[in-house]
Each structure stands twice: as structure tokens, then as C-alpha cells.
């Protein structure tokens, strides 16, 4: 029994095409009901995210492809010849390989991003609720989610931050472990420090203090995080109680000196202090880096962490590809026992398929 995947993604189609074809979560059930009846198929699922729109089918015959290409073309409000430039069609083991890669984050714009795993699961559950899933698709999705979990747990591909704010969060977690119950001090109310504080707050910070020369701006920003605005002159006692300091002021000089940090650390006993300097010129004295128990990172350091994480993810992606290749082989062999003739080749097409589709393989989608 053929397994078919028809779709467009961020590599094959520009956003102008993808946005027209995309299906909102709220419309998913109605769209699946529509898809079930446009051709004689056994099962259908739809994966629609900001990076891709893909229809996954199981059907007795491959000529159903035509009906679905027409449907996508109508949905994208484009001519069929226009759509064909962006479309890919995969069959049999290539469908499994593609879905395994997608759910593992290997086909994402940011390699290893974790959201896609949840999106694949959501599309499976939606299809299941709509009664659009047959045993073959059920098996395919179950395997896809298992492989994605395996890839993530064995390679840790999604564990490393690739943006500056997340790099700060990652480092904070490397120092403190759990961020719940910690306190942060924001010096200045710059955009970058706000973004970084927002990411940190998402990990359960207990309290955020904001100090700014213009006190009204500090109050405004503190209100956003349900924090507390303090006067700039009050930062010394807060250095002793806060665990993370984010500096981003417009001051042309250091606003925190090494001696202040030393005093704060004496009062803090064993507890470390993480200082993030996002300002240019720098606001935190570089000599702070020499103080035991203080960890100082400036904007370049954080960018470097994000860059090296990106490289690390690419290395992990190679390990992940090996796992996917092994799992596709297992999946194909298991299905071979159930559907011997059609699954006997790794990535086949039937003679009934239109000639123009035959040259499309999983590799050409990457």
C-alpha cells in the first residue's frame, strides 16, 4: 500500500506561497474532513506549520496524487504549473525518512528546534480525532514520534541555545541549575536586556529589580515583569541578594566595579553571581571576571556561545541522521512483511504515477 507525502516547505517555497496554503489549527478538523473525500484514500493527515504544509496519505493507488495537487493548487490560489515549481512528492520509505527528520528538527530552519515535535503530534491527534487515520498512518506517526524522542534524548540536539538571550539562559542554568526562586537585577532598560530578562523570567525567576537613571522608565519595565523599580544608588545591597545581573545602560563608564562585586560575594557566602553585560561601551568592569564566584559575560561572549552552539547542533545533526537512517530501515523492513511488493524497494514509485513526479526523492527536498 503506497504511503505518499505531498507538500511545500521553507526550502522549496517562499513564505508568500506557504502562507496561502497554511491551515490554522482551528480549521484543521474541517480541512481534514474535506481531504478525506476528494479522492479514494485510506488515511490522511495534514501538517501545517510556518515552515511547511504537507499532506500525508495512504492509498491503494498513486493516481490520487493528482487530486491532492489540484487541491493544494486551489488552496494556494496559484496555477498548477506555478505550484509544481515548489512542490515535492515523496513515497514509501522516503515519507518515513522525511517525517522522522521533520519531527526530530533536522529539517527545520533552526536545526534541532523543539517545537516541531509538538506540531507533528498535534497534527496526528487532529487526524485521529477526525477519523482520518488508517492503521498504516497510525503506525507511521507513532514511529515518527518515537524516533524524534530517541534522536533528542540520544544526541541532545535541541539542548543548546542558538540566540543571544537563550545563550544567557543556558549559561544561567549551567551556573545555578534550576532558576526557580532566583532574583535578577536589570541595570538600564535597553531592548536587549528586556528580551534577556523576559527569557529568564520564563524559567521561574522569583523577582526582577530594575534600576534606571530615568526612574519612570524603570517603573514601566518593572511593571512588565511584575518586578520592582529601584534607584540607581540602591544597587549595592541588591548585588548581594540578586543572583543574575543584566547591564544595558547608555552610560559611557562602568556602573559596577570589581570591588562592589567582591563585597557582594562576601555577603553572599557560597552563592555565585552571574553578570551579563549587553552594553557598548561596557558597563561592568572586566576585572569582575577575575573575582572568584563571579561569572561575567559580555555581548560578544554570548554571541560566541550562540555561534558555537549552532556548530554543535550541526555536529549532532550528523549523529541524528544516522539514527534516522537506521530507523527508516527498520520501519521499511517491518512494513515489507505486511506489504511485500510495494515496500520491496527503498523509495519507489508505481508505474501509474505521472512521469513528472518520478524524479522527486527525499534528498531533493533537503
Amino acid at each position, binding site marked *: 500500500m503506497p504511503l505518499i507525502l505531498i507538500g511545500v516547505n521553507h526550502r522549496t517555497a517562499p513564505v508568500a506561497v506557504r502562507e496561502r496554503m497554511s491551515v490554522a489549527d482551528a480549521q484543521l478538523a474541517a480541512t481534514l474532513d474535506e481531504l478525506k473525500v476528494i479522492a479514494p484514500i485510506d488515511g490522511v493527515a495534514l501538517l501545517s506549520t510556518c515552515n511547511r504544509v504537507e499532506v500525508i496519505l495512504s492509498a491503494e493507488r498513486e493516481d490520487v496524487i493528482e487530486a491532492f495537487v489540484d487541491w493544494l493548487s486551489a488552496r494556494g490560489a496559484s496555477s498548477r504549473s506555478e505550484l509544481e515549481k515548489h512542490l515535492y512528492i515523496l513515497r514509501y520509505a522516503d515519507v518515513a525518512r522525511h517525517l522522522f527528520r521533520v519531527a526530530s528538527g533536522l529539517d527545520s530552519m533552526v536545526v534541532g528546534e523543539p517545537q516541531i515535535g509538538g506540531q507533528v503530534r498535534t497534527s496526528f491527534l487532529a487526524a485521529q480525532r477526525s477519523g482520518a487515520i488508517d492503521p498504516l498512518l497510525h503506525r507511521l506517526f507513532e514511529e515518527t514520534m518515537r524516533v524524534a524522542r530517541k534522536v533528542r534524548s540520544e544526541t541532545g540536539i535541541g539542548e543548546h541555545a542558538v540566540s543571544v538571550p537563550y545563550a544567557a539562559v543556558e549559561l544561567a542554568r*549551567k*551556573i545555578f*541549575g534550576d532558576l526557580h526562586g532566583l532574583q535578577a537585577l536589570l541595570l538600564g532598560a535597553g531592548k536587549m536586556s528586556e528580551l534577556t530578562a523576559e527569557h529568564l523570567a520564563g524559567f521561574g525567576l522569583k523577582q526582577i529589580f530594575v534600576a534606571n537613571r530615568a526612574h519612570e522608565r524603570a517603573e514601566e519595565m518593572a511593571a512588565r515583569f511584575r518586578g520592582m523599580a529601584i534607584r540607581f544608588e540602591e544597587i549595592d545591597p541588591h548585588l548581594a541578594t540578586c543572583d543574575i545581573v543584566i547591564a544595558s545602560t547608555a552610560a559611557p563608564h562602568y556602573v559596577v566595579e570589581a570591588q562592589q562585586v567582591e563585597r557582594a560575594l562576601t555577603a553572599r557566602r557560597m552563592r555565585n553571581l552571574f553578570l551579563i553585560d549587553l552594553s557598548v561601551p561596557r558597563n561592568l568592569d572586566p576585572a569582575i571576571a577575575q573575582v572568584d564566584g563571579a561569572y561575567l559575560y559580555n555581548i560578544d561572549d554570548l554571541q560566541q556561545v550562540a555561534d558555537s552552539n549552532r556548530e554543535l547542533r550541526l555536529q549532532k545533526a550528523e549523529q541524528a541522521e544516522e539514527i534516522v537512517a537506521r530507523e527508516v530501515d527498520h520501519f521499511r523492513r517491518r512494513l515489507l512483511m505486511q506489504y511485500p511488493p510495494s515496500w520491496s524497494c527503498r523509495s519507489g514509485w508505481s508505474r501509474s504515477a505521472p512521469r513528472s513526479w518520478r524524479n522527486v526523492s527525499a534528498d531533493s527536498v533537503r
Partner: protein
Amino acid sequence: MSPNFTLYAALLFYTAGTLIALASLFTRERRTQHAALVLMIGGFLCHTTWIGTICARTHHPPLTNLPEAAAFVAWCIFVVELALFIRYRVQAASFFVYPLVLMLLTVAAVVHEPFAQMDPALRSSLFTAHVLLSAVGVAALLTGLAFTALSYAQDRALKSKHRGPLWEWIPSLSVCRTLSYRTLAVGFSIYTLGILAGILWSYRTTAGPIDMRVKQLGGITAWILFAVLLQSYISGAYRARRTALISVGAFVAIVVAMLGIHHV
């Protein structure tokens, strides 16, 4: 079959496990770490059987000479490491603990001595308490030192902003320090009780509190250095480089004390 067959089997498993664990530093694959753990557990089972054999044959704890003591301390270290791994999932400790266990068991195999019968005069509960508490305390202290080393490695990596091969495996600095502190605190308490039991036993048998030889000097020096280390944790006067130096001193003192163990 030789009673030492299980000792050599344990050595074989531990060697393979340690090498594979160290290889995972370069492969950065969790599968490799899991394979190493499985091999180490295999070694641990053989190790346990060997210790059981000694107990069954000699009817006393396996602590009457250097090979027995080294093997028992290695066994205790692995038990502590396993318990901490189950509780905290800290894989990085294996890079220090596995080689340590392998090294101690190698000492047991190389310094080959027949299973020794204990002098009947020494068969006292005080002596048994001394050797058991000292061995368990030393095992906990050495595991604590492994976490101190991890903590130091993490501190250096964060300070230098260059990730070493251990970066991914080491948990947060806070977890490393907490585990290091707790293991050292528990180990120190047990070790202190062991030393006190030893002094009492020595007092009863030789009518003197302590007999100052290499073993005793090493043991007391280690006790003082561990006390300083714990004090720096408790007072908050923790300094990375100083802590590392004290830890190295304490480790050397413990090794000297262990090498000083001869027939009891």
C-alpha cells in the same frame, strides 16, 4: 576454579567500562556512556562476588591487607557513585570515579596476597567498626573529591568561556557544589567515627591512643585537609584554586594512608 576468577573478570569489565566512558568524551554520545555504565555494573557484580568469596572463606570483613582494603574501598566508591547517579543522573562523575575504581582494583590484583586469616586477638566489634567506617568514609570522601573536581572543571570552563570536552556532561555548578559538599560532609562524619573507633581499639589493644606510622599519619593529615575543605564550604570562603589544591592534598594523603595498610 580460582577464587580470584571473579576479581579478574571484574577488572576486565571495569577496564572496558572505563575506556568506553573516556571515549564518550570524544564521541559525545549518550549511548557510549550507557554502554560504559552497563559494563561497570557487570564488573560491580563480579567485584561483589569476589568480596563475598573473601568473607565466606575468612569469616571477617575484607579489610585485613592492602588488596582487600583497596578492593573494598573501590566497591564502596562504586556503590556511592551508583546511588548518586540514580538520584541525580550526573554522568560526568564517571570520568573520575570509574578510573579510580579501576585503579584501586588493579592495586588489589597486582599486590597479590592470599586471603589472610585475622589474628584472633583482633576479632573485636570495635576493630570491625573501625575498618568498615573508615572504608565507607574514605569511599564517600573520594566520591566527594570527584564532584569537587567536576565543580572546579565547570568553574574553569565558565570563567575561561571555553568549553572543554566535559562541558556537556557536567551538571550545573550549583549541583556539583551541593553534591560535593553533601558527600564530603557525610563521608567526613563517617570517617571521623572510623578514626575514633580506631583510636579506641588501639588504646584497648596497645594501651596507647595511636601508633604513628605512615597509615596513621596519612589518615590524620587527610582528616585535617578534609576538615579545612568542609570549613571553606560552610563559611562561604570557597575559592576555586585553593579548594583544588586542598583537594589534591587530601587525595594524596588518603592514598598514602591506604598504601600504608599491611597485614593487620
